[in-house]
């Protein structure tokens, strides 16, 4: 990744305008033609550095729910429980973290009320308590991950 790639990544995180030719401004800013910029973005997508270029949705506005959940899993059962939790399609972003609460994941559902069902199912299948911590307020972050 060179300096131009870094500038592309930073600009793309902030979003591009919804216009007929959304990549023109970006191409001008980095001093390349649009075809070269598109090639570079495609490479970054192929390399897995970037997720697809597209709409970033607001779950709550769409009527859905996103909740951060944590569990305390005995080390010996960790893989097994991870499998049980990840088998739910509503579960995303599952991380092991170094804490008494050692499994952290996001539950995303189409309707706000469905999150409780998913969480109850996980508790029943695993026999472990789920700490459910939905977002109450989001503090605005101006600049995202600068690379």
């Amino acid at each position, binding site marked *: 990744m060179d300096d131009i790639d870094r500038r592309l990544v930073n600009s793309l995180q902030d979003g591009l305008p919804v216009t007929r030719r959304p990549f023109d401004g970006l191409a001008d800013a980095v001093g390349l033609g649009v075809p070269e910029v598109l090639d570079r*973005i495609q490479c970054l997508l192929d390399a897995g550095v*970037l997720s697809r270029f597209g709409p970033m949705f607001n779950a709550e506005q769409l009527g859905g729910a996103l909740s951060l959940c944590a569990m305390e899993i005995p080390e010996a059962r960790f893989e097994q429980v991870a499998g049980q939790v990840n088998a739910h399609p509503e579960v995303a972003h599952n*991380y092991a973290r170094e804490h008494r609460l050692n499994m952290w994941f996001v539950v995303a559902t189409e309707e706000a009320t469905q999150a409780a069902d998913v969480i109850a199912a996980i508790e029943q299948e695993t026999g472990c308590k789920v700490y459910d911590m939905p977002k109450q307020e989001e503090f605005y972050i101006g600049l995202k991950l600068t690379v």
Partner: protein
Amino acid sequence: MVLTDTDRELIAAIQQGLPMVSRPYAAVGTQLGLSEAELIVRLTELQNAGLIKRMGVVVRHRALGYRANAMVVWDVPDNELERVGRLLAAETCVTLCYQRPRRLPGWPYNLFCMIHGRERDIVLRRLAQIIEINDLQAIAHSVLFSSRSFKQRGAHYAAITPGLPVRRLSYG
């Protein structure tokens, strides 16, 4: 705002990403039988209504070598939450900052932020600076580094399948 059937088709068509061409909305419009201008108008409306935050990307920080991913959690007195939340969110290396409910007795923390870095010691040094600069020494905090990621799907959900009357929302 109520989503129309056309909105659902539109979202379903673009949720996996726009084609990497100079006029992506024209390309998607052709697929849906809509004009480029119609598509742009409707997407702008969805954006103004807050359903779409922006047309952008999610950086996979691990693919970039940002291996140290710390969730820093704080037990902030309720009457200071707004002030401390704003201070943390304004820090360049903080990428998310949310208020969440305490779950007592096991979990006393009500403010969550993420700090990414290439190495753990860099993240911890940045955290120490943030505490020092913002005078947060009195607020109890805990740092939870991630040791493994099982699923890192971007926050792209909203699968609205055309032709189905019921909205379907999923990750992946």
